[in-house]
């Protein structure tokens, strides 16, 4: 996905925080397109970023399923800049 596309889409994007069990290597950031990846002290990893729509969100959850990752929570967030 190119930068220009991102900026035109982002107005409609919802932001999501997906928390999974275990520390995920940084190389997976590319796998979960456009999500930032933060390893937390409690042994979980947080994927955070814009998600175009529900279908995209489910696609992302499917990826966690396919890697055998245990899902801890999925939360819809206000875009960080709005906070």
């Amino acid at each position, binding site marked *: 996905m190119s930068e220009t596309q991102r900026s035109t889409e982002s107005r409609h994007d919802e932001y999501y925080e997906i928390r999974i069990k*275990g*520390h*995920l*290597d940084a*190389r*997976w950031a*590319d*796998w979960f397109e456009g999500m930032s990846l933060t*390893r937390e002290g409690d*042994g979980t*990893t947080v994927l955070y970023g814009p998600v175009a729509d529900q279908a995209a969100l489910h696609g992302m959850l499917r990826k966690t*399923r*396919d*890697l*055998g*990752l245990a899902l801890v929570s999925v939360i819809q967030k206000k875009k960080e800049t709005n906070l």
Partner: protein
Amino acid sequence: MNIPVLASKLYIPVPRTKVVFRPRLIERMNEGLERKLTLVSASAGFGKTTLVGQWADGCDRAVAWLSLDERDNDSTRFFLHLIAAVQSIAESVGKSAFTAFESSQSPPIESVLTVLLNEISALQFKIVLVLDDYHLIDSERIDDALLFLLEHLPPQMHLVIATREDPQLPLGRLRARGHLTELRDIDLRFTPEEAAAFLHQAIGVDLTADERVALESRTEGWIAGLQLAALSMQGREDIPAFIRAFSGDNRYIVDYLAEEVLQRQPEPIRRFLLQTSILDRLHGPLCDAVTGQAEGNVRLSDLEKGNFFIVPLDDRRQWYRYHHLFADVLSAHLKAEQPDQIGSLHRRASIWYERNGSADDAIRHALAAKDFTRAADLIEQACPTMAKLRQEATLLRWLKALPDELVRRRPVLSVWYAGALLTFGKSEGVEERLRDAESGLESTAELHERPDIRSASAVKIFVDEAEYRRLPGSIAMYRSALALMTGHVIDAMNYARLVLNLMPKEAYLKRGAASALLGLTSWTSGSLDEAYRLFADGMADVQQGGYISDAIGGTNALADIRIVQGRLRQAMSLYERGLQLSIEYGDPVMRGTADMYVGMGEIHRERNDLQTAMQLLLKSEEQGEHTGFPQYRYRWHVAMARIREAQGDLLSALDHLDEAERFYVGDLFPNVRPVAAMRAKVLIAQGKLREALEWARAHGLTARDELSYLREFEHITLARLLLARFRSDREHSFLQEAIGLLERLRQAAEEGERTGSAIEIMIVTALAHQMNGDTPAALGSLERALTLAEPEGYFRIFVDEGQPMEVLLGAASKKGLAPKEYVGRLLEAFVRIEGKTSAQPAANHSLLEPLSERERDVLRMLRTELSGPDIARELMVSLNTLRTHTRRIYDKLGVNNRRAAVRRSEELDLL
């Protein structure tokens, strides 16, 4: 076969090496055979495929296996493979179902499944069908079909589904009824004993109890984790240190271990693993082509021996795949380490597949490589085959994956695009694509005129030279179809003529299609003789080109035209010839066969042989919907409605017309008897004038309209409405309007030589004069109708008019009106169905054959909201027995569906 069946998808992946035997799970699966469904639903890496493969290997029933992939979301592909899987263990099963797919692009799944299930229920032995990786299916159509399959599962068959997520089936209900055995994460994870046995086998060293506990608690019995851990420990000196480090780490197990494993591989193997992760199936020579290394076969075999997350796809060990989870990990590493390599890896795979004859895979990898020019070339070459196989859906998907500006630059692809859209009945975008193609043609023409710039900007815009040369003809043909579809008859005609000028003689299909299109335009504008001639020419070409089924389908148009012309005999022999053709070429049943039976039934109905008519309709139903053309269901219900009408069962006639409306798909045939008008005719007979009036208003019909063939039937029906209004209101102007309209209609029909229409018009005219008290005029009109109708053996066209016609014919008989003997036979027809000619006779007579006590029970259930299977359970009978009961009830009530049965039973006050 439309889509080649991949044998590797049907192969049972029996593990060859180092597998822990799991008797507790095998036992549960064996017990599960008593139930309908075994669901192995667990996360990635829990050993589902291994377990089920192992179980299947030792199972005392024949096991059919189907490994699913994303492309199986195309339901045709899914069911072709499903049928092939069952056929691999039960040869007698599936032949008709295959035919269904051959003869139609997307036959109704339920009808195909019903055929399949019937064949399975005839088997002398029991079978199991395994669907592996069902989570890859994301199609409501397939989910629904699977539920249908489960609900009708014969006792000979057991279904196993292995998946990473619960399928869209009513699991709660299945569970509650004891139809379901489930194996989930908690069942599949290794117990401490199994883990110990596994580790012992895998690394050949016994771990201490503490070490084992540490590993187990870190992996939580997750098999993929333990397997990776074992791989990392192989040949390691300091295993305790490894376990300590691993269990103290928070990282995602796969990340931690895969890195360990990959790091310990020699560079060529590591490279091999990463680079081949772009392939969904692994094959020695293919891997060599992608990696540029040699001895891919040996590598794959070594990986299998080393327990390296690799699954065999055939007995001869020629094709493998990586375990999906492992493939994901490898490709994540590839993406992170060699992102710029990925495109060229895909390109090499594409080239290999092209050379080895798999266009589909070659195109897929070219698209993944984003090498769109290459993909476009491949797609263009694949187009003729895809069109012949009626795989327009896939074609369209490919074309949409290409950048649009590329497609627009390529005239051959643009025309294929337009053609594919038209096959789906889409007119939007077609003209645009055709224009793109034309401007492509013009620009090459320019290049030819100016050789100086030719070499400089020689951008290839096509690869299929033969198709390119025929483009002007193809463009004209699609324009013609588009024009006809959007109601521009003159344009359609002109373009079709252009096709005939442009296309060479041996282009049978396209020339035939163009003639047929011309025929349709003539038909639409009411020139029936010309329409017949052109359409028949077209069908002769189409048949010559080997498209037999399309030629049979064309019979529908030819016979329709003959019927309007009042030539029932010729129509009948056309259907007979069509049927003959289908028998000659059909193995076992040709598409179009079902339509022929419907057509023949329709003529028998007109000749008052209702029993034969009904038998023919049932016979056509037995052939299966897949042997009919897209309009088959619609035609069937219209024919049935008219039989019901003849039987005096107007309610049921309306039901069938409603169904017909539902199944009507607009095609290029002119819609000269719209369902709404047929409905209105029945409503008038029922005396529901208000509703009929609404119909006339909604369609803007008045007695002063300009007349055209397309609206002829609507106007005749309007005249009937006016007469009915006169009868109820005694308002004379209605009668005058009707007579005026009918007179104009008669003239128009006679001018257009539409004898069939003329007969009906004269009959209604006769009734109008009779209402007006003008018996001589009535008899005059009737006599003309009789003279025209007698040679062709018309009956119902008179008899359906009911009592007023009976009176009129009686008067004719007294006066000795010619043809005398014919009048006598018509009058007999009234006598024979005495009491059935009034508007709603069905309500007045009870059943010829009373319902049995059991049938009453079933009927009571039919009046509830319960589904078929629920009723069967409630009455404690099998679904098949229930079907026998309902079939008998419908026969006795003279209805054809549940709703009508309920309605009829209420009318007759049966319960």
